[in-house]
């Protein structure tokens, strides 16, 4: 059953990648504001006067 240790290793590696990403997200302030991002995405719409016909 060597394979299971390889797979556990792979899974832990993936988890570590995500953990690093999580730390980066927290450090860089991705999670500081938990309100405006939800609203912001609703306001990205087109520039009215410049649309191609």
């Amino acid at each position, binding site marked *: 059953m060597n*394979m299971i*240790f390889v*797979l556990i290793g792979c899974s832990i590696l993936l988890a570590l990648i*995500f953990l690093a*990403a999580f730390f980066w997200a927290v450090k860089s302030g991705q999670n500081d*504001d938990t309100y405006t*991002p939800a609203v912001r995405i609703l306001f*990205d719409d087109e520039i009215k006067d410049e649309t191609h016909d």
Partner: protein
Amino acid sequence: MTEKFYYDNKTVRNFAIATIVWGIIGMTVGLLIALQLIKPGMNLGSQYTTFGRIRPLHTNAVIFAFVGNAIFMGVYYSLQRLLKARMFSDVLSKIHFWGWQLIIISAVITLPLGFTSSHEYAELEWPIDIAITIIWVVFGVNMFGTIIKRREQHMYVAIWFYIATFVTVAVLHIVNSFQLPISAFKSYYLYAGVQDALVQWWYGHNAVAFFLTTPYLGMMYYFLPKMANRPVYSYKLSILHFWSLIFIYIWAGPHHLLYTSLPSWAQSLGVAFSIMLIAPSWGGMINGLLTLRGAWDKVREEATLKFMVVGLTAYGMATFEGPMLALKQINAIAHYTDWIVAHVHVGALGWNGFLTFGILYWLIPRIYRTELYSKKLAAFHFWIGTLGIIFYAVPLYFAGFTQGLMWKEFTEEGLLKYPNFLETLLQIIPMYMLRAAGGAMYLAGVLVMTYNLIKTVNQGKLLADEPAEAPALPVQYTPQGTDKKLHRLLERKPMVFMVLSLVVILIGGMIEMMPTFTIKSNIPTISTVKPYSPLELQGRDLYIREGCVNCHSQMIRPFRSETERYGEYSKAGEFVYDHPFLWGSKRTGPDLAREGGKYSNAWHFNHLLDPQTMSPGSIMPPYEWLINQQLDTTTTISKINAMRTLGVPYDLGYEHQANADLKEQAEAIAKDLKQGNVRVQSDREIIAIIAYIQRLGIDIRTK
């Protein structure tokens, strides 16, 4: 300083068309194989359209072609807008689109021809695996490139789901593709038996998680608020949802192998994590549904939102059912039955299908600057699609439950109540008919959608490059002094850093893993278990080519109901020479793990030629081409050599002796057949497959 730029809508449109076209093809093949389960004659009398070969075509087409293209459509549309940037490179977008379509076309050609690795949901042979890797990397570079040049510092939760999808699928695909090629379209997995099974279901489970779930959750978090024009119920919950889901999901794979020869601690690990998965999954579903609070009047009016609501509900049902099925007691009944087929279709038809339709109805009119052609037709699609799902799933739940219990039922005297497998199958054929009707309704809905969208496209005009503007991100910091050193610079680029570290990890992982593939494993070997003879090896590859594993398992679980029916339960040590493993996941026909010696050669010959003569009412298709086709023995040498490389103990130089042994065994079988009044030349494929079947499970004899 505000910058002007243009969103690329053309690639989004292209992926949308591909989604619809492949969706129709994949579902039509699905309907065809559903009909074959009622009338085997629906195989059109051809080996290229017979269940075993085109069932993988159906699964690959709906997962990687329909859902795959829909993912790219959704990602390319939402990523640009969330990051306020055009996709990183138009050239990469083009390569990504056409490369992915070429991969699908090569699957459509090779799978009916019988080129298959037999790993479920990863059947494509090694050259296509390499192509998938390349195109996936192209997608990744394009996505991370866009993230790097973004004009919005904050990355909305949808993007996190996309990143997790990319990273995990890359690792899964590579680990599950370690194969030793023996020719352009044939290879053997490096792992054997129980190890191969573990790799396959680690992959299979996580493919469901990171191909069918996370990208769709990302799309849900973008498109649902846009459709309802209100923010997601709780952004905080969405972040919690994301991180908890991706940390738990990876560990649940072994629940696909409960009661098999997998060590039980690994099984328990899989069960525990499966139960935990309810929390984040339902958190996500509730977050989506509550986004619509106070907007349910919109749901009444808009078919688009109806699709999203039913899609989310289906997600909730499937993710509740999944952990329940991972409980050993429930799994004991449900595994190998149509219950599982119903379960995956609630996810596929409800969650993936309905979300895709909702997004298509919302997105196509937008990029074509027009209104949807007909809201009525969209509403019709919604209702016939929902009815289709119900007519598909409910009969199959009933069928699975019925058959699972019939397999286990004993008489008062302690004998199997239904010793004849066929009896349990004939009981559920009416359910198969209802299922096919449900599938047909669902497909009819898709055709109506296609008409509606073509009409919509014709009345509008594609805005290929949509103008947008946003201020550039402020340059935050100019490195000075020691910060100019390479590593310091890299540290300031988290995305580049992440991609580079992934590459490093993968290289390291491969080097680390290689020795474990080549050294002898510590699976308890059984001295009586011997490698396959050359003829049996060839027969096994024919068994793989014909996709027998789609309907016949080779794994007897340690239940009295199974040992009474099939014989001694399967041991891990019996599969050490099985590259790949062929345990299967569904019993449309009986288990074959101990089939060897149960019937005569002549019985198998007649049964393969026309199953109905030996088992009246059987839904197995006839395999007459095995009698007409000559066995290709030119590959024997390379097959023996490859197996030896993988650790199967064939003597050095045996490959030159192999074809002589093969001929001798084939002639002996032909001679035996002749005594049973069957005349067939000894060089036919059917001889090899009979040799393989007669070998199954006889290495350990308990009775």
